[in-house]
């Protein structure tokens, strides 16, 4: 069943002097959920626009569903579905009309169109909204309708550009369920997101993208494992000396400085290592104010590879805001 449904090599896209996408190469296997994870402005949308033929290919090569995006754009178009980052529903059309219009655009036969619409309204639980104008739908319903539209033509690949942006936590979780069930039925999913938890929860594989470049690619656990077994966060009376002391330990693979303390990446079970670390520091006369031990998250992976927080600029994920509120 497998094989590459998307093959990108040396893709570059410039707006004037600015390289929005700066030479990326990757492949997506048929049937998987593949994510581009990166901050706003990393080049995710530009890449998706080239792959979906909305932007002309400038440099490099890209094949989607077996067709070259530059040579056979209309064949690529016929084999993909897209859910755009912003809502792109006509406010004055009903749910049914939105899907009917889309089916007609792709020249689906009348009978197939009608049965597919029923099927999809059912899937995204909008049967009751069939004749409702889209301006009367909630944000989550609009998104679901857009996903239904993306699936209308039974595409081989569904592109989702920031599928849960601006949705509340419960709605996001439900969206993830829909996306997973669509994938289980055999549709390959290519999604971009700047939400760590989204990439983590949904993806089979992730490419971390920043400043137009792919920094790391792998399965979520592979990426996390690159950081080691555990992360130990410490605030001490002298972080510089403490950091230097820990660098000397062979179990510590890296030290990352934070505003008040630092994080030690360790390649062993942290619960066993922690007493030794504390002994070492106390031996140097350093007092420990705060200790925290955790498994690496996608946030940590991102910080590790890019050297900065994902959401320095732009919105933060509702989940992050949520957990912060609880911590207080």
């Amino acid at each position, binding site marked *: 069943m497998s094989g590459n449904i998307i093959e990108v090599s040396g893709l570059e896209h410039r707006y004037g002097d600015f390289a929005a996408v700066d030479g990326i190469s990757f492949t997506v296997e048929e049937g998987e959920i593949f994510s581009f994870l990166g901050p706003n402005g990393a080049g995710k949308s530009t890449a998706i626009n080239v792959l*979906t033929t*909305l932007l002309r290919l400038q440099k490099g090569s890209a094949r989607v569903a077996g067709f070259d995006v530059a040579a056979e754009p209309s064949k690529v178009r016929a084999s993909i579905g*897209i859910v755009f980052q912003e809502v*792109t529903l006509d406010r004055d*059309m009903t749910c049914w009309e939105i899907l009917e*219009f889309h089916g007609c*655009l792709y020249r689906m036969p009348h009978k197939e169109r009608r049965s597919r619409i029923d099927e999809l309204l059912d899937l995204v639980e909008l049967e009751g909204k069939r004749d409702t104008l889209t301006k009367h739908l909630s944000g989550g319903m609009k998104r679901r309708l857009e996903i239904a539209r993306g699936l209308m033509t039974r595409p081989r690949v569904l592109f989702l550009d920031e599928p849960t942006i601006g949705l509340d936590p419960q709605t996001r979780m439900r969206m993830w369920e829909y996306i997973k069930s669509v994938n289980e039925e055999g549709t390959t999913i290519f999604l971009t997101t700047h939400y760590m938890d989204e990439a983590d929860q949904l993806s089979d594989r992730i490419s971390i993208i920043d400043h137009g470049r792919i920094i790391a690619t792998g399965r979520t656990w592979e990426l996390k494992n690159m950081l080691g077994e555990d992360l130990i966060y410490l605030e001490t009376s002298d972080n510089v000396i403490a950091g230097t002391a820990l660098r000397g330990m062979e179990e510590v693979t890296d030290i990352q400085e934070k505003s008040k303390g630092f994080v030690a990446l360790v390649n062993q079970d942290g619960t066993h290592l922690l007493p030794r670390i504390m002994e070492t520091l106390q031996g140097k006369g350093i007092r420990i104010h705060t200790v925290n031990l955790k498994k690496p998250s996608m946030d940590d992976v991102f910080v590790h590879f890019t050297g900065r927080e994902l959401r320095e600029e732009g919105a933060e994920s509702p989940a992050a805001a949520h957990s912060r509120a609880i911590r207080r």
Partner: protein
Amino acid sequence: MTMNLGFLTIYWRDMIRFVRFRTLLFSSLVQPALWMAFFGIAMSSNFNRLTTDVPPLPGIPNIGYLTFMAAGVIAMTTLFTSLFGGMVLLFDKNWGLMREVMASPLPRDHIIFGIALSGMTKSFIQSVIIMAFGILIGAEFFAGFGPAEVIFSILGILLFVGIFSLGFLFLSAAIAISLETPEGMQGIMTLLTMPIFFASNALYPVNAFPPILQAVSMGNPLTHLVNGIRYFAIGGHYQAIGIEYITTTTDLLVSLSVLVVFAAAMFGLAWWRFQRAVVT
């Protein structure tokens, strides 16, 4: 392989919007009637008074100003509706709605055809309303025609209106796809409508124009549309505002050809702009 009727999809969608957008529907139908009712009646009392001392020519119909300008109002309404017909593409573009269409396998000329067809439909509806309302308030359209002649004349008018509107809809679509803001489009439209409307024979005879303006009006598609409408609605030989008008079949065919050439050129322009358009 069946014929691709994709443009009908675009047409269907635009007509849904036209019908559903009540204020737009209402204003586009009432506005031309208001022109007739206020401008037409006010001006016709003036013009008719000024031309009372011109002796009517024997043997040909002497047409009142209201009848004369009703043809102009049909033409003017078609011009405005068509020039603004492409605006919807600009809104679609700005609201992201066009991305769906641009990312679909639908050939781009179908977008042009679809929008043009719906614009043409709107112009047909408006033209029929103006004719009916004009006759109601006293315009002497189809005077002395038999039923068959009336139907033939209406079809003739719609033919001219249709081709003319296609030309300006293509132009409008070309402008819309090339611009970023509705304000910019509004500006260009205003710039275009003024000379096209006033350097034409829609509201007054061009005979008294200075030679340059006369030349402009002869190349103006609006003048040729008005010629066509008056030929079918009034006849080929009549007197209005003290001036004798003669339109031969040749004149009529020349006017029709000008409109066809104009529409073809504008389609070329729109096609070229759409091939280059990038919508993300």
